[in-house]
Each structure stands twice: as C-alpha cells, then as structure tokens.
C-alpha cells in the first residue's frame, strides 16, 4: 500500500489556482488522504503598510486588498473609521453604498459560477457567465467611475451620486440579469455533467462548518444561517428586504445553488434600493485625525464575513489595522472538504469556497515590496534573467 501513496503539490502555480498558494496533497491513487495548507506567496505586508499611511490614503489601500470584493473591504474600513469618529453617513450615502455593494456581490457570484464551470471543464458556462457579468461591470463604471476598485466611499459618505439617468440603466441591467439567473439555475439543475461533478463532492457537515468557523456562502450551503447583513446590519441593510439563503446539501452543488439564489436576493434588494433612494446630501465632513480608541467592524463580503479591527492613537494614521478576509476563515473547512475526496475534485472543491488568495494574504501596494518578498527580490530576479539569456 505504502508505495502507492505520494504527494502532489497543488500550487504555488497551478492552473486550478487563479492566485498562488500551496496545498500539499497526500494521495493514495486518486484519493486524498491529507492536505497541508501553505499561504503567503502574495503577502506584501498590507497591514504594516496601513500603519504607515494616513486614513485617506488607506481608503484606497484597503480597497486593493481584493480586486473583486473591493467595495466590501472599503465599506468595512469606512464603517470602522466612522464609528471611531462618531459620525454617521447620510441616508442617501448609505443607500448608494448598499447598491454598489450588492452590484459587487452579483458580479462576484457570476464570476464564481464561471470559474466553477471552468474548473470542471465547462468552459462554455464560463464564457457565458462572464459575458453577463459585463453588464454589472458597465453599470459599475457608470455609477462609480471604474469597473473594479470603485473607490465609492469616502470617510463620511460616498463620493459620487447616483443620478436619475442611471436608474433606468440599472433597472434594464437587472431585468436582463434576472432572466439569465433563472436560466443558470435551470441549467445547474438540468445539466447532468454538472450534477455528476457537484453533488456529494466536498462535503462539509453543519457541525463541522460551525466548529471550523466557516463563513459566507460556504457556511450557508452547510445550513448555517449566518449573514452579517442580518445579524449586524450596516449601511442600509436594516431596511432592505431579503432572506438569508441556506441549503442543507452541504456539498459543492449546495454552494452553487446558494450563490445562484443569492443573486436573486441581490436583484430584489437592488430594485428596492433604487426605488427608495432617499433624497439628501451624500456625505458629511470628516476630520483627518481619529481620536484614540478601538473598534471592530464586520461586513458581509461576497465571499463571507469580512472583519476589520482598528486601533487608533489620535493621529492621522492608525496604530494597528487588522484585516481578516473571508477566504482565510474558510481555509480550515477546506481541508476538511478535501480529505477523502478525489484528486479530480480538488479544483472544484477549492473553487467552491471562492478563494481569493491575495485577500487572504492581504496584498498591498507597498513601496518596500521586497520587504516581504520570497527568496528573490526584483533586482536579483532581473540579474538572473539577464545572466540566463545573456542580456
């Protein structure tokens, strides 16, 4: 038996991974008997960088923790700072924040459905969902000025108003998306090859999900009713009509359905928010320095609960800023899901938690990039390349 056991490294570079990290799998034939997780390949010391920048600069740095859930991180950051400052954003700003956050959730979930399709070799689905995602991205560009990294928030409000000519566009986009979402749900139910790859794969039982502190759609697909938007409402979520979507399948298929159902909830919320957009100013003035104190803020990012902790010291820079992106919370459960599965299921199980390695590692635009670099820094690499190829 023992000679048939061998280890396969998945990562740091692997086609199933969109970003680098490493899981060392111990295989017996095709069956996985152990998985070891190693992160940090894109760690660039974001938390340290946050301590060295002003609160205004940090607005854009936290956004770059993750390109896909940029809004979630920024929202979490401004909520945190606003609580420390003791100010509150005006209602219109709260609604706009909610709208952008939900649009982002749609874009993230659509992206995920595509990636999941790609992981099981269903490239056509990938192309279609990403094509539909364009609608959201175009809306985003119109509302915030950029397709990703929206930079919507400022401390004390939002930076751009939603004008009346944008509302019909949003509605049109939503109508089209609604149709597509219905189609994808039908497809996921009807397409046998998807069912074959997803049902009963990557099981995470409810009690395991609770014990391993899973968050977001991963937890909700294991029938854990946990959603920050409900238990700790921020922005305008206390006024939004929506239900927490759960599924008791506990497998990859359940995670697919949870996300597709959430898309519908997002559309519902967006329609409500657009119709009930309150009048008024979009921001209040905020001082540059934050009084000493500490605060924790939570936001439901598309991938799950995102938690930020800030300790301020009265200056214009934070004393300590801690970010925990949702993916890190799901890694522990991931190990549980992989063990006992098959090598062929690794990509889809991995994808099912919608991992975002950079999020986990908190990538950052840090000028001292070699500060946390791996074996080589940029200069050494350049030298090596020149030597290797003789200029």
């Amino acid at each position: 038996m023992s000679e048939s056991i061998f280890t396969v490294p998945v990562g740091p570079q692997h086609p199933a991974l969109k970003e680098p990290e490493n899981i060392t799998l111990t295989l017996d034939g095709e069956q996985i008997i152990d998985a070891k997780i190693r992160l940090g390949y894109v760690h660039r010391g974001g938390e340290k960088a946050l301590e060295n920048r002003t609160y205004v600069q940090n607005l854009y740095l936290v956004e770059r923790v993750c390109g896909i859930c940029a809004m979630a991180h920024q929202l979490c950051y401004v909520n945190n700072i606003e609580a420390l400052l003791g100010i509150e954003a005006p209602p219109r700003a709260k609604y706009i924040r909610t709208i952008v956050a939900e649009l982002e959730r749609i874009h993230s979930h659509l992206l995920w459905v595509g990636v999941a399709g790609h992981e099981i070799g269903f490239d056509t689905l990938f192309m279609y969902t990403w094509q539909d995602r364009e609608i959201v991205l175009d809306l985003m560009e119109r509302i915030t000025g950029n397709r990703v990294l929206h930079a919507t928030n400022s401390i004390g409000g939002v930076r751009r108003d939603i004008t009346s000519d944008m509302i019909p566009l949003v509605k049109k986009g939503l109508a089209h998306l609604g149709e597509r979402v219905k189609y994808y749900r039908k497809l996921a139910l009807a397409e046998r090859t998807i069912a074959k790859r997803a049902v009963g794969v990557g099981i995470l039982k409810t009690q395991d999900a609770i014990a391993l502190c899973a968050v977001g759609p991963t937890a909700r697909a294991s029938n854990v009713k946990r959603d920050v938007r409900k238990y700790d409402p921020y922005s305008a979520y206390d006024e939004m009509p929506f239900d927490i979507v759960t599924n008791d399948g506990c497998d990859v298929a359940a995670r697919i359905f949870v996300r597709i159902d959430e898309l519908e909830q997002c559309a519902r919320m967006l329609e409500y928010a657009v119709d009930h957009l309150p009048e008024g100013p979009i921001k209040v003035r905020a001082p540059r320095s934050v009084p000493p104190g500490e605060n924790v803020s939570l936001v439901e990012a598309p991938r799950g609960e995102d938690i930020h902790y800030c300790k301020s010291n009265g200056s214009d820079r934070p004393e300590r800023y801690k970010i925990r992106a949702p993916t890190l919370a799901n890694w522990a459960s991931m190990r549980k899901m992989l063990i006992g599965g098959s090598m062929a299921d690794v990509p889809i199980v991995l994808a099912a938690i919608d991992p975002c390695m950079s999020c986990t590692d908190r990538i950052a635009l840090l000028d001292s990039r070699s500060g946390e670099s791996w074996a080589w820094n940029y200069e050494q690499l350049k030298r090596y390349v020149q030597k290797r190829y003789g200029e």
Partner: protein
Amino acid sequence: MKQRFGSKVTEALVQRPRRVFMTIGSDTLTEAMWYVAQKGYRHVSTMTGLDLGQSLCVIYHLVEGDVVLSLKTVVPKSDPKLSTIVGIIPGAELYEREVHDMFGVIFEGHPDLSPLILPEKWPGGIYPLRKEWKVEAIKAELDKAQG
C-alpha cells in the same frame, strides 16, 4: 454580562451596541474560553495581534448572535506564550499560525505551528508586525540573510 468571571476580568467595556471588549489574564485564557464557548461563542472571526510596546496583546474576536465579543489577553514580549484554543474551537488553527508568524506568540499545544504566511527561508527572530521592526530594517535583514 461576563462579570461572573471575577477578578480575572481586568477590563470590560461595551463600546457601542453589539460590540463588547474584555480583557482577561493570560493564565485564565483556556478556562475563560471554555466558559465563553459554552455560552455559545463558538465562532472565532479572527485573532488580532497587537504590539503594546513591552507586551503583546492577542485579541480573540468571537461572534454569537449579533454580539461581537473581543477577548483580549496580554503576554510579556520576553516570554510570549499562550495556551492554544484549537481544542475548544478548531477553526482558530490558522489564525493562531498567523499570529505566530507575525508576532512570535507561541501557542502551546498547537498541532502545527509551521509558518503559514512567511517563507521557509525567513530568518528567525523577525516578527514583521511588531513595532520595533521598521520596514527598512526588515529589508536590510533580508538582504543580509540572502547575501
């Protein structure tokens, strides 16, 4: 709410609705964690390390219902040892590894404290998020290690 824990709780603060901060002695951590877990706080959202100058502070952010309980415990920098809570809440495993990487807090009884984020070749003794390590100093140290 938790004042039942007697003198071990050195500080308790309800900072704003749904946010509770609490400081406990490092020796009673396991005991307090058991107690809190029985009360339903089984979800560790994350763990934050904090450099207080002469000592290190580890904050456990726990969530139950709609309350976020931040349990703080302080250890001296010269001997940063804490007992692990993996036995109580398995989900804390990766967070403990992360705090170990970044602050050098040793969690006794943890199954595998190998580096999670820092590279294998990382020179020992550098804990990047401690305040005494400035970005330039880390850079210089790394260059030295690589030759």
